[in-house]
């Protein structure tokens, strides 16, 4: 596993020990997930629909709480530490409508930094910077729920970036972006120094950004390795519903 190869003496950003989670209606979504991500590493989380990617990401900052232990930069996730941990992990929800709750784009992006109690000029600087990073400068006064899907997505990403967290947990950040915006986001993820755990169906974006890929199926990790190795393993991808079998039929 690449994790142990290059992360032996680096600080661990994320440690999950045997995390299990079932939704209140009894659906088991995670069945014992153990994972370590060294600081600075960018890890992609792939898996078929319903594999448990979103559920896993929501464990990391205590939005959903299951069994098992989670450590973020060494601190154990608990009721007492959850606020502090949320300053360490920025979580992007898959659906931007779940993420944006304020009357204007400005309010939404400013919420995280304001809540941390940062001084006003710093908040302003972060908002401007985050919106610029996602190419949404000039949209500050707009209503988030009246933007296009891709625009909402980009504002949602800005709300996370503005938190200035050392770790990013992003759920399908490239979904519904047009090719140009997708390219720019990939370039942005490449350039950012943060530790990342990113769920995605965008296998084409993997080699450019992520050094390591974790494959999830039915709530379990079924593979964990270097990006090139995993992407070359067609049998593996096929077995877990991640390839197009025989390609698309031609018209």
């Amino acid at each position: 596993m690449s994790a142990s190869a290059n992360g032996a003496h680096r600080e661990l950003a994320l440690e999950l020990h045997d995390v299990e989670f079932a939704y209140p209606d009894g659906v088991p979504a995670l069945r014992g997930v153990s994972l370590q991500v060294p600081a600075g590493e960018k890890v992609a989380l792939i898996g078929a629909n319903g594999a448990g990617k979103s559920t896993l990401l929501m464990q990391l900052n205590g939005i959903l709480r299951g069994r098992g232990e989670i450590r973020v930069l060494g601190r154990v996730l608990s009721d007492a530490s959850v606020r502090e941990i949320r300053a360490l992990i920025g979580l992007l929800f898959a659906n931007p409508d779940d993420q944006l709750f304020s009357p204007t784009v400005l309010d939404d992006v400013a919420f995280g930094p304001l809540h941390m109690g940062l001084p006003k000029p710093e908040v302003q600087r972060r908002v401007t910077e985050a919106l610029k990073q996602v190419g949404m400068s000039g949209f500050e006064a707009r209503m988030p729920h009246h933007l296009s899907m891709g625009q909402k997505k980009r504002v949602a990403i800005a709300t996370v970036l503005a938190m200035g967290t050392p770790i990013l947990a992003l759920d399908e950040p490239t979904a519904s972006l047009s090719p140009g915006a997708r390219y720019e986001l990939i370039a942005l993820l490449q350039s950012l120094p943060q530790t990342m755990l990113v769920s995605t169906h965008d296998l084409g974006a993997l080699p450019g950004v992520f050094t390591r890929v974790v494959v999830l199926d039915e709530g379990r990790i079924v593979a964990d390795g270097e990006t090139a190795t995993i992407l070359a393993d067609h049998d593996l991808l096929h077995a877990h519903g991640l390839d197009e079998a025989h390609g698309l039929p031609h018209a």
Partner: protein
Amino acid sequence: MSLVFALGDRYVTRASVVHRADGRVKLALTLGYVLLVTATPHAHWLALAALALPVAALVAVARLPLDVVLKRSALALPFVLAAVPLAFTTPGELVATVPLLGWTATREGAEAVATILAKSWISVVLACVLTASTTPTELVHALRGLRVPALLAAVIFFTYRYLFTIGDEGSRLMRSRDSRSAAIAGYRSGGTLRWRAGILGSMVGTLFLRSYERSERVFAAMQSRGYDGEPRFLDPPTLHRSELAGAALLLLYAALVQAYVRLG
């Protein structure tokens, strides 16, 4: 979040006779039974116990999780609070005095409150069985079957449907807010009470605006697929004689309990 989880969908998937039974029969049984329970005289505990028995049996036969039923039926408690003053205003034998306030409770008053509590609880548990064993679509069909006008039935259906959609949407917005509610050492986090109240206020506003807009989109999507206000079924439910007989027996039993209480 937990509040909204508690408000999760009412239907509990099980393969039971109660679940299979026709919605119209269940709805009529529920309404009839509740009426009969209401008729129980003051402080007749034996009768109330006898009326609770079949309801408990239905919970068991429908194989509903006990904790779910108890939690949901607890929703009736706040309404029962309205009856508590009766304990102090009903004339009768004094049994207790509230310290400081000097209100005095009477035995008759306490019994009146307990009777109301028991009646409401039996009725609410029965209603829980109905909603946990009948899908909303079936319930609308049942309402229509009992001659409730289509428009009213549709309004009830959509209110029910959107209660949970709005609840879910609200809980997701809260999640997002909580995700970004962080604290860092050396800074006073959380802002002022006023600021937080403002955020909550605008969240509620956003929620309603969005729900309203979503309802228009959903309605457009339903119309595009031919919706005309009448629920349709792949297999229209059919009345089975055994279900009718079962419901009739339960109602007869409740009526007999009432008759016995009055004559005996």
